[in-house]
């Protein structure tokens, strides 16, 4: 490669960085529901300017160096600077575009920020919508330098204001906490898995090169399946511990079009079968006492909600999901190890739930749910519980208790179940109105908590 070609490459990369900085300038003036976005944009600008300067430095060196030029070294340096832009920095542009106020459920952002600050305080969340029917989270991993201080939570764009389904954000928020659970026991589990794989394939000789390679490959598959499954289950249980029946119903709604029995494999990134996930949630993470307290309320709407949840739980009383996955040799080995750790995983989830995080099993939330439901039935946002104690001539003694997020979501789901069963015969809130009232409630309750 000649000097002129190298110079041309460096100019192209510099121009790409200039275009990147220009895009950031455009994004900077837009509205975001969280300051984290503006903070991120300034950090990206710093990074972009720094990288652009590096490219200019390479070019200056090139012009000064006396021949013969070590072309391959300079080329590698230019490509390295370009890769940082193309493979890493430009991803942020899409995330920021999707994080604009108009594109996200902005009323819900303060509630999620408040929750995330307690669960993953090192990674302030940035919510963004994307054109995929998927919830996801990206954090620290693979983010360079000072850009690793955020978590990016993606929501499906067409469900932007579908707050009931956004209950699943509770699942996503726990992903950054999973690794510390599995890494503790990874070695011990790997040892057991190696033995089990060897036992399952007696024809493969570990001393033979082919056998050794095959066994190694299968061990890796089982470990992947084990880890992915545990991570998903930890997040499922966390979401259920936060939001109880709302988590269960949100998950059911989200997977309405999915196959409950899909074998985990490399193509689906070892995603555990839904049947099994529901079984684990229903059998381990739904607090029976809290449910009994909730069902103590005798209103028609709560009783209908009760029968829905009981019917759903009944479907997952079996071990059908586990039995299904065990029909596959390798997954069977992985899931046997997973099953041994369910109780420990549940304890780990609980240990990560400080008292400052409102949960659905809290007495406060359980008391609030029926009252918030009454408000929804009256077409009023379930944002607070007001108690007027006494009214004097010119004064009033009253208290306002902001609604807790789990209580808002459960009340919303209870209303939605009632809606589904009665919308043909009664004049009920539309789903859109219900979502708007719930979003307003979340925003108001966070505001009231700040006061």
């Amino acid at each position: 490669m000649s000097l002129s070609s190298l110079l041309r490459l460096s100019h192209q990369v510099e121009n790409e960085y200039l275009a990147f900085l220009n895009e950031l300038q455009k994004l900077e003036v837009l509205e975001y529901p969280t300051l984290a976005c503006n903070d991120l944009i300034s950090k990206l600008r710093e990074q972009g300017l720094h990288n652009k300067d590096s490219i200019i430095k390479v070019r200056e060196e090139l012009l000064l160096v006396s021949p013969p030029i070590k072309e391959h070294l300079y080329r590698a340096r230019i490509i390295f600077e370009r890769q940082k832009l193309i493979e890493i920095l430009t991803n942020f542009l899409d995330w920021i575009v999707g994080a604009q106020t108009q594109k996200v459920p902005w009323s819900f952002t303060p509630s999620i920020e408040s929750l995330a600050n307690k669960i993953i305080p090192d990674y302030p969340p940035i919510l963004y919508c994307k054109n995929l029917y998927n919830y996801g989270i990206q954090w620290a991993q693979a983010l360079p330098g000072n850009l690793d201080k955020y978590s990016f939570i993606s929501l499906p764009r067409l469900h932007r204001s579908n707050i009931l389904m956004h209950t699943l954000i509770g699942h996503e928020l726990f992903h950054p906490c999973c690794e510390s659970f599995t890494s503790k026991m990874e070695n011990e589990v790997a040892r057991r898995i190696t033995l089990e794989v060897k036992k399952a394939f007696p024809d493969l000789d570990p001393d033979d090169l082919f056998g050794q390679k095959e066994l190694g490959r299968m061990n890796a598959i089982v470990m992947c399946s084990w880890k992915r499954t545990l991570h998903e289950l930890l997040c499922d249980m966390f979401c259920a511990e936060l939001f109880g029946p709302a988590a269960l119903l949100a998950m059911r709604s989200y997977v309405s079009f999915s196959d409950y029995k899909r074998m985990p494999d490399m193509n689906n990134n070892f995603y555990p079968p839904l049947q099994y996930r529901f079984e684990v949630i229903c059998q381990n993470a739904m607090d029976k006492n809290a449910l009994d307290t909730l069902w103590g309320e005798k209103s028609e709407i709560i009783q209908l909600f009760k029968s829905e949840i009981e019917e759903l739980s009944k479907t997952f009383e079996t071990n059908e999901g586990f039995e299904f996955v065990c029909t596959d040799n390798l997954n069977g080995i992985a899931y046997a190890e997973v099953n041994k750790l369910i109780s420990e995983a549940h304890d780990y989830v609980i240990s990560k739930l400080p008292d400052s995080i409102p949960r659905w099993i809290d007495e406060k939330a359980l008391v609030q749910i029926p009252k918030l439901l009454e408000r929804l039935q009256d077409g009023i946002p379930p944002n607070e519980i007001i108690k007027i104690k006494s009214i004097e001539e010119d004064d009033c003694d009253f208290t306002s208790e902001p609604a807790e997020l789990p209580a808002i979501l459960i009340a919303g789901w209870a209303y939605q179940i009632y809606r589904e069963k009665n919308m043909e015969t009664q004049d009920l809130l539309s789903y859109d109105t219900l979502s708007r009232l719930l979003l307003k409630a979340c925003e108001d309750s966070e505001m009231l908590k700040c006061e």
Partner: protein
Amino acid sequence: MSILTRNVIWQELKKNRLVITPLVNGKDEIGSSSVDLHLGHEFIIFKRAKVTSVDVMNSTDLTRNVYKYQEKVRISRGQKFVLHPHQLVLGASIEYISLPNDVSGEICGRSTWGRTGLIIATATKVDTCFKGCVTLELVNEGEVPLSLYPGLCVAQIVLKRTEGLGSYKGRYPYPTGPEFPKLDQELESLPKFFKSV
């Protein structure tokens, strides 16, 4: 028709017949014969460069292209929204109101803001049984731009007991922020005689 005083408003709130939520300023929000309303975060602005005219006869186009002519913006806490002289924007109260079937409301400006030229509502009547955040049609009639912030107390609602009971048959049920005008429905309500030209 009689105006509800503070004591009566509290009584109605206690009975849950009347709902005003949240009471952002605590009990001070209820005045001697009115309730304070605070400016919310959302505004609808008209994209003047794109609007040829607001023509009810061509309202289908206006409704279909609502995002072409108007834009919803949200201002975060502590940030300002600058309302320029003679500019009209739609805002809404933070307070969500639910009126019983024998109480209607009237939105009034506050004299302090009135002195700066700020008009907060032109359609000031709130029907019985209305539920929602009150839309404010904000116009700066003054000569200098006004900086508005979410949470500012810019309006108040005077509640009046009606003679007889009413119901709500409006076009804007359960608004939680400002809503785009539904001009196509305006055409529907045009008397037959005037439609068939």
